[in-house]
């Protein structure tokens, strides 16, 4: 029996969310193939997600098929076979940051509060025994639009608007509305497949689609392109409406993978020819429970709405914000600094007022200068070291950013949104204010000012990694994310495993004080025994080697990607300088990689 519930749930699926998130934060990566990888216990990097945003004219006929779970070396080999060696050479390899992904997803979820007060992070992690194989992390949002869709002109209008608005912000999304969270999730996940089937010449399915969507079509009329490649901008259907109570008929031809069943269950069912939801629903649930336990019947019940599957709303659901709209557009260059400061101050006060009551402070703020219909309104975020409720400090930070921000030509309004808030730190009050207490807060103020003007990536704390390759043996963890209320996953992971990592890292006098961004080929004028340099040129001077220490062989494993094979030496010259050089075991040339400054 289906259709018991009268609720309507909208699911927004964000395909390849780890890569999308990286591209949102670093738009410069759009030119390169991006691989987000995870390192397992043996040090093997496996691909979590990947993409290469390239214009259609550059795409090849054969698309590289790289599935999540491939080792990085396999993925690069596939990429090389299609796009040549240069593609793998320019590929950007990033470590997985699942907490960072969820943090941005939560921010997006708070933004979605404008559609409904109930917004939840989608349950994308596949349950069961397959966790170690699973490469999925949370990458969807679920919104209860039971009573709010009519405010946006109906469900079709709402789902289409959500997809388009997100696309305007550079986020590729697919959305679907159905009776239950499970059905909505399955429809959003298979939205492209539904569109593909709808393009077939005839058939019952196609009729159902056209009838149920009441004429809703893709924004582009051209046929969808099957895209195993990472072009998420392929012209597939991006939204689906499942009519009330008809999820069984509507989604019956979708693969059982969309029911979020464990992979071993899916494989077992596939062996007996059960690959579609409709086939699975025809089987008696008792026999399914005897064979696979309670997982499969439970998922079916959730899908059909036989059992309640409530959403867990995001915390801090009150999206604090304040907006000021000018009566007439104001020229950016004519904006008076004093007036602008007063305006920001009043908006910040409006945002802070409800927070102060609950002893909370702002830890992340977004400022937007709206323009008169012109795309490219100025938006920036101000991250804080620790939550604060001090309005003057927040205004200072915002004004610091404005010093380095290019104002749009015409400004129609200014809006401030609190993206995240946290509890204010409780400190023991003392009779006499000690120096340490005041110093701590001054240090926080300093870090906030530095990150506001220079950017969050410009104030970092070094953390060691357990990697032998010098270039990746440490990471610069942004301070705001390390100490902030919503910490970056990468930083937190590093902190958690700090002790073990330090024991594996090579530190101390064998490592140089300065490391060149790229090893530089050295001009060696004469060689001594073992082919070691005796004289070499560096910065217009001849250096004569007096002492040598080495070799220290650094060789990375083949499964990590491009192999690094180097013999490092420390040379002390007649001028007293110490240099860290290596001889490439492949090219047999000498490179300077660091100096002991």
């Amino acid at each position: 029996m289906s259709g018991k519930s009268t609720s309507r749930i909208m699911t927004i699926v964000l395909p390849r969310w780890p890569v999308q998130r990286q591209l949102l934060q670093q738009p410069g990566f759009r030119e390169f193939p991006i691989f987000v990888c995870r390192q397992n216990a043996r040090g093997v990097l496996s691909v979590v997600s990947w993409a290469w945003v390239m214009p259609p004219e550059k795409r090849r006929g054969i698309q590289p098929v790289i599935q999540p779970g491939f080792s990085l070396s396999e993925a690069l080999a596939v990429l090389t076979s299609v796009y040549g060696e240069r593609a793998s050479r320019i590929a950007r390899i990033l470590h997985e940051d699942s907490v960072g992904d969820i943090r941005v997803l939560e921010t997006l979820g708070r933004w979605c509060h404008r559609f409904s007060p109930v917004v939840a992070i989608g349950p994308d992690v596949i349950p069961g025994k397959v966790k170690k194989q699973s490469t999925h992390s949370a990458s969807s949002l679920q919104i209860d639009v039971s009573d709010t869709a009519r405010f946006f002109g109906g469900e079709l209008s709402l789902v289409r608007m959500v997809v388009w608005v997100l696309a305007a912000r550079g986020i590729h999304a697919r959305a679907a509305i159905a009776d239950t969270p499970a059905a909505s999730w399955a429809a959003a996940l298979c939205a492209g497949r539904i569109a593909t089937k709808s393009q077939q010449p005839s058939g019952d399915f196609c009729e159902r689609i056209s009838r149920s969507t009441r004429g809703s079509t893709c924004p582009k009329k051209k046929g969808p392109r099957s895209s195993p490649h990472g072009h998420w901008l392929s012209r597939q259907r991006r939204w689906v409406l499942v009519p009330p109570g008809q999820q069984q008929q509507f989604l019956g031809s979708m693969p059982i993978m969309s029911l979020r069943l464990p992979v071993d269950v899916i494989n077992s069912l596939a062996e007996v020819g059960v690959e579609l939801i409709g086939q699975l629903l025809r089987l008696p649930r008792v026999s399914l429970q005897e064979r696979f336990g309670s997982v499969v019947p439970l998922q079916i019940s959730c899908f059909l709405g036989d059992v309640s599957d409530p959403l867990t709303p995001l915390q801090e659901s009150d999206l604090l914000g304040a907006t000021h709209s000018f009566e007439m557009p104001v020229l950016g260059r004519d904006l008076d600094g004093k007036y602008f400061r007063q305006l920001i101050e009043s908006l910040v006060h409006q945002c802070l007022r409800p927070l102060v009551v609950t002893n909370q402070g702002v830890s992340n703020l977004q400022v937007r200068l709206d323009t008169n219909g012109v795309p490219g309104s100025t938006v920036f975020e101000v991250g804080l070291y620790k939550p604060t409720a001090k309005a003057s400090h927040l205004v200072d930070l915002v004004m610091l950013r404005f010093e380095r921000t290019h104002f749009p030509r015409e400004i129609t309004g200014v809006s401030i949104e609190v993206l995240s808030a946290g509890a204010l730190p409780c400190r023991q009050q003392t009779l006499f204010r000690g120096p340490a207490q005041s110093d701590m807060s001054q240090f926080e103020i300093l870090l906030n000012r530095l990150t506001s003007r220079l950017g969050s990536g410009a104030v970092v704390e070094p953390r060691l990694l357990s990697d032998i390759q010098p270039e990746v043996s440490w990471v610069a963890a942004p301070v705001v994310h390390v100490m902030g209320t919503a910490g970056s996953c990468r930083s937190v992971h590093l902190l958690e495993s700090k002790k073990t990592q330090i024991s594996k890292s090579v530190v101390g006098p064998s490592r140089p004080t300065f490391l060149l961004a790229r090893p530089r080929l050295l001009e060696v004028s004469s060689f001594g025994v073992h082919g070691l340099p005796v004289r070499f040129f560096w910065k217009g001077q001849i250096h004569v080697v007096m002492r040598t220490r080495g070799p220290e062989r650094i060789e990375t494993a083949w499964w990590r990607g491009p192999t690094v094979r180097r013999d490092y030496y420390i040379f002390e010259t007649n001028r007293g300088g110490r240099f860290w050089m290596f001889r490439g075991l492949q090219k047999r040339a000498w490179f300077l990689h660091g100096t002991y400054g």
Partner: protein
Amino acid sequence: MTKNIPTYPLFSKLDQAGGRAYLQQLSRIVSGSSSLPKYIDEEFRSTVVSSGLPSLDRLLRHKGVRLGTLMEWLEADGDGVASASGATTLALAVAVHLQAANELSERRPVVLVDRARSFYPPSIMPWLESTQSILPQSSSSVRSRVSKKNTVNSREEHLLYIVYPANEADEFWAIDQLLRCPSIAAVVGWPARVSSIAMRRWQLAAKSSGAVGLFVRPSDARREPTWAESRIQVGLSHSLQNRYQHAASCGNIDPAMRQPTSGHWIHSRAFTLMQVSGQWDAMVAVSEPSVECVLDLTSGKEHVGFHETHMNFYETTEQSKCQEKVRRVS
């Protein structure tokens, strides 16, 4: 009836025995190292801490580093940021010692302003850990260490920060802001060109907070005026320099001398530190004292009495033969 002719206090003090001290104070005011007359010598002595390098302490005017001042470290060969002469190593050693030296606060972080983005933190990570063991165990620090077990976000973890400014204006602004913060032990930077106005701003900023600014600069900066209290030229140790010059003058050195070793010479480094003057400080220019210093690169502290063993850089028996050969030639 006789009238007492009033005399100016300055002239009256000059006649007394303390006139010299008064003049010294006046010279400090003029030179910018002290702009407030109330900044008397007792306060000076109370804010002087050891640099962690006894040799350097002997060289400095106040027998240590005065908090709230600037120090300049000049490279030997003028190579700039990525020089290999060791000035940065010494500046970092002093900075790491300063963060543990101040007893008023538990631990003050060291901040590096690295515009070139070339600093490699693993080289000094062991130094930070070694300073943790010598810190006084105050009650609050013990409390925070206990609480650290339950949380990953503890300030005890953070001893070193790096700031990456994008341009020169940001670099100067960041240094100025950092030097104004009293909860920072030292700021290390590599500014190549600094105007005297910017340096004066930094000096006043450091003075207001008690932070110490340590700036590694190319040797060309010696010709520029400075507001730094001390300016140290870092060079190769005299003993090693003589040996190297001697070996080079012998002509064909046996190639075995340059054979790679797995010896321990990389764990220490010998320097000659010389206090040099700026354009505005003529008093020191008369005599430029220098000291020899051997730095233990494992701990960031000075090797006291290590000179003799360190200079023996021929480590294997085979190399000792070469050494004798060189001597015979000489």
